[in-house]
């Protein structure tokens, strides 16, 4: 079940032959069949960890947004398995699907935020208090707000206005004063911005642009675009930060279609998921240049870097799997997930577990999977609502003796 692949330090795209051979996949699926089958039954909420060696030594909580059922699930993982503690209904019009898309937790763990994509017509960001899960504020933003990030001091929330279904015109990143939930600025960036990350220093915000093939850097202090990196294969390079947004037609046929960006804990590296051409990119945050690239599975979508910096985990939306990359060796493992359309991923602060959301298809409820990063095994799975996607880690509490 281990599939090794080495990253290459090259700015050249690798050939498709380097991609995962399909013949290997059935083996992976077979090995993980018990976990997948448990989730497919739809009735098993919280399968306990599979082996004593994998027994968690802490409790972990995550929030997951269920986009098609307009609810946010608070889920706990521990020795007893996964438990959905609460489902919080969100959305403006109960008669419609408002689309709870992204969710994030403030660095101090006191609040969580959910982006509600479909308004009339503008979407909103709702702020809740963690634990009580009570509504604490709202802010109207742009069209189809999606991914969010909060500055380390908790003062500012950035949300990308994805505008997925509107005309392919430049959209924006909304900067919100999080205490009062006031939108300070809409910073025009590109066509279909998605993915949102802030560095540890709190000085830079990064977003990817599905429609423009760009990575955009924003100064948190100035709330303005400072750099733009074109990601189209063979045409990579910095663009004028004040220049026009690149649209889908201009950026060429072989496209990165970046859907996510994440910053390493030391702020030195960025990773971008190229959903369009099955690549993950490593980018030097200082020079904003591509330093490593490697092929991966079908439809890389969301990313997470483990707090110990060892692993990069990518969800493979088109392959019902996640790719776990050892950053030092470049070795990659694929782990199948319990249901298709694998969407979001976060990693626990102890770097032990990846929590992965799976949208599933049509009216089949989606799942939350827990993957042990050390063993590469899917150790728990729980059924959530419809189309779980956005996911955020809330807190970890170590088990004390007797607990």
């Amino acid at each position: 079940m281990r599939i090794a692949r080495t990253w290459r330090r090259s700015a050249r795209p690798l050939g498709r032959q380097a991609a995962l051979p399909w013949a290997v996949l059935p083996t992976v699926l077979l090995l993980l069949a018990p976990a997948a089958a448990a989730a497919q039954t739809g009735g098993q909420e919280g399968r306990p960890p599979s082996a004593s060696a994998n027994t968690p030594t802490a409790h972990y909580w995550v929030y997951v947004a269920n986009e098609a059922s307009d609810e946010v699930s608070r889920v706990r993982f521990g020795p007893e398995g996964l438990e959905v503690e609460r489902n919080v209904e969100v959305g403006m019009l109960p008669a419609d699907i408002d689309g709870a898309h992204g969710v994030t937790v403030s660095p101090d763990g006191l609040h969580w935020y959910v982006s509600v994509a479909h308004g009339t017509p503008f979407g909103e960001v709702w702020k809740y208090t963690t634990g009580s899960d009570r509504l604490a504020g709202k802010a109207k933003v742009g069209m189809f707000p999606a991914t969010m990030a909060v500055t380390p001091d908790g003062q500012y929330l950035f949300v990308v206005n994805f505008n997925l279904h509107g005309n392919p015109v430049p959209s924006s990143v909304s900067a919100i004063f999080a205490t009062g939930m006031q939108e300070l600025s809409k910073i025009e960036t590109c066509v279909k911005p998605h993915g949102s990350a802030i560095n540890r220093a709190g000085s830079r915000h990064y977003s990817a642009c599905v429609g423009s093939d760009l990575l955009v850097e924003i100064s948190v202090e100035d709330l303005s675009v400072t750099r733009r990196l074109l990601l189209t294969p063979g045409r990579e390079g910095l663009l004028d930060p004040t220049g026009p947004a690149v649209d889908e037609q201009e950026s060429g046929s072989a496209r990165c279609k970046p859907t996510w960006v994440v910053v390493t804990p030391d702020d030195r590296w960025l990773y971008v998921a190229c959903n369009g051409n099955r690549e993950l990119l490593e980018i030097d945050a200082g020079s904003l240049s591509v330093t490593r690239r490697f092929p991966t599975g079908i439809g890389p979508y969301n990313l997470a870097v483990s707090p110990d910096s060892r692993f990069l985990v990518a969800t493979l939306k088109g392959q019902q799997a996640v790719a776990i990359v050892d950053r030092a060796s470049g070795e990659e493992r694929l782990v199948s997930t319990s249901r298709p359309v694998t969407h979001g991923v976060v990693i626990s602060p102890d770097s032990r577990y990846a929590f992965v959301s799976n949208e599933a298809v049509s009216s089949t409820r989606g799942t939350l999977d827990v993957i042990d990063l050390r063993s590469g095994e899917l150790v728990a799975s729980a059924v959530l609502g419809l189309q779980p996607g956005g996911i955020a880690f809330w807190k970890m509490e170590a088990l004390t003796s007797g607990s």
Partner: protein
Amino acid sequence: MSSESSDLWVFTGLDGRDYAYLGTMPQGGGERLYVWDVTDPTNVLLSDSVAIDARRVNDVKVNDDATWAVVTREQNSARGNGIVVLDLSDPGHPAVLSELTENLTAGVHNVWINGDIVYAVNDGTNALHILDLSEPTKPAHIGIWEIRPGEEDKTLHDVWAEDGLAYLSYWDDGLVILDIGAGIKGGTSTKPRFVSQVKYRVDHGEEYGNTHTAFRYGNYVFVGDEVFGCSACVNGPRGYIHVIDVSDIENPREVAKYEVPEAGAHNVWVEDDILYVAYYQGGLRIVDVSGELRGDLYRQGREIGSYHTAGTAEDSYTPNQAFAWGPQPFKGNIFVSDNSSGLWVLHHEPPRPLIP
């Protein structure tokens, strides 16, 4: 029903039998269109269902000769959405004939069929998208019409058309009337032209527009607004029926209203001088709209019937709570979809004059 219900369409099929097609909501389903044989309205039979990759099938419409139907899709797994066209050669067992997602990926909330043209409400662009179904196996996107082109801040919710005019429910932009072949402004079915517009604001603790649905009958258009989350919404939605006099189509004006104080209006139908309103938690309301309409129809005692479309714990999602979605009178009966309790077939006897 195994899922929450959305809109319905009742018609006589090519086989001479009567059918009610009913869409579904995310709770418990959302991926199906249910096919009910209602030839005997006292013995409704589930004939079939059609699985569609969606998490909400909000609307269904059948063309005039009952040869094909259009089903809307929202929250499709691949975010493709758009519409699905059904072949009704065997109306008890409709089959998927084609689909169209081009320019409709955000989802389609409502549609209206006007001959071979389908008007689709696009959730993303908030424009009226015009589709050519002259070849139902190859539906094609041929144009759009939108209010205030280039401006994002607008919401289109529904469309209804007849006699060369289209009535667009444009939320805060109110009721928008288009010439699609009436000969007023030179519009055609594929190139609509603006005729007129009525905007309003109503107080439900705060001010709202929220024009949600419209139905033309005689010299009037019955317009509903839909309000959730207002400070007056203590037991659910609010909103009421605005009666717009369109005898001067270029200068429409609101002349009357029908407002149930404790509930919120949803879809409407008017036939034979009777207004049927699916009034959400107020159930079905039946209103005499004969003659000239002025003022407050509710206070005038024009309501001549009502039915609380609530189900039980065994057969509904929210027991004892009506959430009426859409009405359609058909062959002397009233078909009502209730979001929680499914399909109802009701019969209303008009009040008889007292004979001393």
